[in-house]
């Protein structure tokens, strides 16, 4: 037969005590003193940086930007860079001035055991301007596998743009469908200071780390 159980204090007390004990444990774990860094690995690579001012992780970033604006893009091919595992790669260095995101940027790194995603669904900045409005520099090392500009007709690919524009590619009218496999990105603001507007790196979106 089922029905309401007798309301016996003797049965309530252990339950309440267990609840209270669990809460004490939870609070205690919340205020424990500091801990050592988790899974600390060996520090510093044996090899100095080459081609890039720092040693990038060997797992490249897959970068896509649906639409972007930039004052200019210059290209330097045959750049030899060193990754943090010591391997050397010959790749391309791209230098943007005043690079802004007009629609959706996704940066994904797929590595052994995890995936990191930085997703900016609308507008943002990956260099852009400082708080004085000065154009900033963004350098990428890797391979831009696609980028398209509409100049009467749609021109795609870095080589196609170089053929059309010459060594300094203007992107002031915008570019679209940017896809790249990028080892490293550096942006530089010599007059740095966080303001509430016009920070060179401005990423309104989501950062996620998932196991894979």
């Amino acid at each position, binding site marked *: 037969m089922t029905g309401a159980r007798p309301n016996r204090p003797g049965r309530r007390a252990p339950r309440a005590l*267990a609840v209270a004990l669990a*809460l004490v444990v939870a*609070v205690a774990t*919340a205020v424990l003193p500091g*801990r050592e860094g988790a899974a600390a690995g060996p520090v510093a690579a044996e090899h100095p940086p080459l081609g890039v001012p720092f040693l990038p992780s060997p797992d490249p970033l897959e970068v896509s930007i649906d639409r972007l604006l930039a004052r200019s893009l210059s290209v330097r091919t045959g750049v030899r860079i060193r990754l*943090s595992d010591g391997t050397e790669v010959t790749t391309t260095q791209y230098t943007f001035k005043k690079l802004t995101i007009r629609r959706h940027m996704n940066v994904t790194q797929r590595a052994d055991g995890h995936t990191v995603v930085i997703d900016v669904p609308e507008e943002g900045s990956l260099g852009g301007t400082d708080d004085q409005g000065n154009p900033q520099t963004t350098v990428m090392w890797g391979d831009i596998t696609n980028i398209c500009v509409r100049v009467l007709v749609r021109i795609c690919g870095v080589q196609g743009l170089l053929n059309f524009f010459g060594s300094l590619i203007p992107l002031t009218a915008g570019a679209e469908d940017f896809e790249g496999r990028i080892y490293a990105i550096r942006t530089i603001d010599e007059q740095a200071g966080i303001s509430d507007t016009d920070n*060179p790196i*401005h990423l309104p979106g989501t950062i996620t*780390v998932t196991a894979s």
Partner: protein
Amino acid sequence: MTPRARPEGRTHWRRGALVALPALLSAGGLAGAMTSGALALDLRIQDRPLRLATSSVYGTQYGAAVVDVPHTRPDGTTGTVRVLRMGFADGVINGLCLSQQQEIMGTTYTLLFTLGDDDPASWEITTQNTVLDVREATGVLDMDGVVDLNVDGTDVTTVDDEAGNPVDNPLGAPEHRFGIQAGYAKFDGITGTVQDIQIPGLLTTPRLDLSVRPGDVACPAPAPPVGTP
């Protein structure tokens, strides 16, 4: 129904007091220790993630790296969870709320921890070496200075040692992991899930509240910050 069955909605004051008293005592002890400077605030949750909401976290010498955080599962087995560990050498936090759900004897409770005030212009919490272990976070991340993406995590720096030199691998990253290095960072309007949060150098003692709420209670959505620190 037996004659002894009680009506729905009755408040069990004695049972509630038994549950709440230890938590309130712990909260009171924590607040007292912080006030006296005897205890550095260092939150750590090993077996279950925390939900976090803050109007803004701002700091200098910002670094981030993918690391493995050890944790114990509810069944007692151990493992690691991979997170993006963000570190700020010096900084301020503009209001902070953390919530953690607890299942105790089949009943859901929420530990709700708030630090600071509700004024998005006050930037009232001053810290050193703030570390967030982010599983996912939504907000506005601004960075300035020299900003590097995909730095080897072991090369990321945040805090300095006593001699003024950067501490090697302060985030404890394994080799060849994704990292970010920036001179300044401001992360606004954050809502998300963190595996761990540490604020060992709490330089101010803002208002602290720790409460136990029945059910699954979320932190309120953070107000956008006003101005800059």
